[in-house]
């Protein structure tokens, strides 16, 4: 299972588990550049907590994040594992899907994309119904502002995203890299992630929320929730 810690890979993982796949490893690619065409860069260090809360072992592979070369790094990582297929959270990006399919073909693996071609609005609604807790950690498109950083995906946020889609033709689920998320809780999480300390950066047209400190807490424990909106 390819995992970034964001909502798409988390939702794909949920579907894989529900469909009875035996998810043996979480594979996390760690790019060294901020402009990778393939992999999530922001807060990638938090995939450790993600893995811990799901009790699935994690395999991390560093990559330079240089276009096309980064695919070799992914191939290397996958080739060391004894698996039958690769699950990914691709929804609409043919670029990502085709590249993963190619690697799978070369390694004799099956590519599984549970979210592929599904309606973005339905996917967002599904996240809400399944009570995923995902916060926006980065916005990279016209129309977003600083105040978006740290917002939890709620029906109000979905409504605001629809408005941006109408005005600036962004992809509703951020498939064009418009925004990135971090999943703090999911149906398959044994514990939830709480952000303890974070910092917001705003660069004029884009910005991100860097999580500096986070920890796992029992799901039932309400006292441990941190107020990330207060962070600056």
């Amino acid at each position, binding site marked *: 299972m390819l995992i970034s810690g964001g909502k798409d890979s988390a939702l794909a993982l949920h579907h894989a588990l529900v469909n009875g796949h035996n998810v043996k490893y979480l594979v996390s690619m760690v790019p060294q550049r*901020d*402009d990778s*065409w393939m992999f999530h860069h922001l807060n990638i260090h938090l995939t450790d907590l993600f893995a811990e809360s799901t009790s699935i072992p994690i395999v991390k592979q560093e990559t330079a994040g240089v276009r096309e070369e980064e695919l070799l790094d992914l191939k290397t990582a996958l080739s060391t594992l004894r698996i039958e297929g690769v699950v990914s959270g691709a929804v*609409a*990006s*043919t*670029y*990502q899907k085709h590249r993963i399919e190619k690697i799978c073909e070369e390694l004799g693996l099956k590519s599984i994309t549970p979210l592929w071609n599904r309606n973005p609005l339905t996917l967002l609604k599904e996240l809400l119904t399944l009570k995923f807790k995902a916060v926006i950690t980065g*916005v*990279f*498109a*016209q*129309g977003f502002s600083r105040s978006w950083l740290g917002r939890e995906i709620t029906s109000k946020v979905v409504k605001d995203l629809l408005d*941006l889609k109408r005005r*600036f*033709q*962004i*992809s509703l689920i951020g*498939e*064009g*890299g*418009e925004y990135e998320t971090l999943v703090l809780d999911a149906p398959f999480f044994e514990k939830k992630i709480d952000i303890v300390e974070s910092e917001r950066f705003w660069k*004029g*047209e*884009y910005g991100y929320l860097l999580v500096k400190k986070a920890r796992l807490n029992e799901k039932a424990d309400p006292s441990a929730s941190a107020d990330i909106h207060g962070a600056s």
Partner: protein
Amino acid sequence: MSKLKKITSRAIKLMDVKKNIRDIGIIAHIDHGKTTMTDSLLTEAGLLSPTIAGRARVLDYLEEEQKRGITIKTANISLLHEEEGEEYLINLIDTPGHVDFTGKVTRALRAIDGAVVVVDAVEEVMVQTETVTRQALNELVKPVLFINKVDRLIKELKLNAEEIQVKLARIIRDFNNLIAVYGEEDQKEKWKVDPAEGTVAFGSALHRWGFTVDIAKKKNVKFSEIIDLYKKEQADGLVDRLPLHEAILTMVVKHLPNPLEAQRYRIPKVWKGEIDSGMGQAMLKVDPEGGTGMVITLTQMDPHAGLVATGRIFSGSVKGGDRVYLVGAKKEYRVQQVAMYMGAFRVPVEKIDAGNIAALLGLDLARAGETLVSADHKDGMVPFESITYVSEPVITIAVEPKRPKELPRLIDVMERLSIEDPNLVTSINKETGEYLLSGMGELHLEIAIKFLREYAGGNLEIITSKPLVVYRESTQSPGAVVMAKSPNKHSKFWIQVEPLDDKTIQMIEKGDLAEQMGRKRMGTALKEAGWPTKEARNIWSLEEHRNILVDMTKGVQYLREVRDMFIAGFRWACQNGPLCDEPIRGLKVKLLDASLHEDPVHRGPAQVMPAARRGLLGSFLSSDPVILEPIYKIGVSVASQWVGEVTSLITRKRGKITASEQKGPLTSITGFLPVSESFGLSADMRSATSGHAFWQTAFDHWDKAPASVSKEVIAETRERRGMSPEIPRASKFIDQT
């Protein structure tokens, strides 16, 4: 109304006889007697009784115009004239003379083929005479000359016959100089006026007499006789011997072109489509059976009828119920009513066809400059090139209602006013609560405020700020080649800006380079102007503030798919410069290279637009940008003893004197004056000359503001707009690979 009806029905019959139609205008410097002359023509047309002509000023039908004694809105009228046994239909457009309303003159010119230029014999050729004549020549409108107020030379200046002749000869010489300077190659010789040929008339509009050399000869009237009559105070009979309308209308019929002649050379100038196409040929030949092609030159809100759109039909015809298409607004309409003008009256008629002026009801989105075609010809119709205005709105005031709850009403009337007057720019910023009106001068704005109050029913109290000058941001040297990434970092653009050369800017201002020409023809025009082929052939966009976007990339994949998004980002950046949020002007923006994400979802408008803007602003800021301030051309006419005072007043206000010429007892001084220094000039001029100076200002050009001024402008504007005091650094907009 029965008389009006009779005339109208004769006019309708004549609409089909193209060679007997003249679409003309009367243009002049303010107060040179245009409206008075028009009234005198109306008398002959039977639309005004002879006794009140000269005082009634029928065309000045707005209350505001009557009160101020000047014409503000363009009015239209049709008259009939018989010449050598044939009847002619003369469609006449009256235009305002005050420079602040030059925009309306420009629009009216698109509808006409010929113009009578009125020049005051006492004041001679003035700043505005030059401006309107230049505009007319630019639209290929042929001028003839009427020298008015000759009576004043005799009665007030008490000149003798010889002195009068010298003065008149000087006016004709100056006027022909304008034609030589501003005329097109093909016309400048042919269009020079000459009393011997009958293209110059002399007279007094107030006393309703006038003559051409030919008429005077025929009627055996000598100039010395006219002088004698005035001296003996027996000039009253002149109106019967030398009626003004006869002199003017004869000149119009004999020397100004009919639509068949005029459209042959005007269509290729004012319309940038393919001349060999069906529409092109129909317009060239004034074909009433061809597809309808019309340009809207004036729109007004009628409280009862709604929007009235007036314009010139170049081909085809318009009937009530016709389905028409507005090319600019991209909207189809059914024409509710077709009407022609008779002074203040709009007379509904069944149909108006090619070569005539028509008023149409029911086209809500029509605006001055809009192109109208019959709905079945809408595909591929090239719009008329947007009318280029010589003047620009350079002064702004902020307005707000005294009672905040009346804000919706204010917004409502502001929107209506901006529909009627495209030279008045209204901007409503709901976020900052700033409601701005930009116009061509103090008077223009003063009148606009007056209209706002009236449209609101007279009981809307409006608070206005002191006038502010509009500035531009520009550069004088090339900026660095910068790379800008899309917000998601997946696409990269390499961009460089440099100053656009003056020659190209002039081509745009003259209308010789317009986006409507299409890429190919813009390329040809630019190549002729000396641009390297590679750049000339790849113009992506030409923005309203004279900025050009050139694509200089080679074989970049997917670039075509993001082209429109990149252009949108370019336009966005040009609207709000980084120095103080004023528009950027005169920039050549070169897209040198790009690298794009191959997947369309990763390169939508929300990615490409901000990247285009970042790169443009980054390179611009690295280029040593400057503030441009608007400069007026100023013309002062004053008795010789005050020349020193006037000169030092203008110089004190950072102005420059360019010429000073003795014209009889008066000296005419011309020069330049920054618009920002013109506030309160009335009072200063009055006190410097004890009220003896006549003066006019008209927007002339943009010029680099001195460093001290520019610093102040940036600081003040940023503060007013709630921006941080520091100009952002270029590095804020530049990305590293």
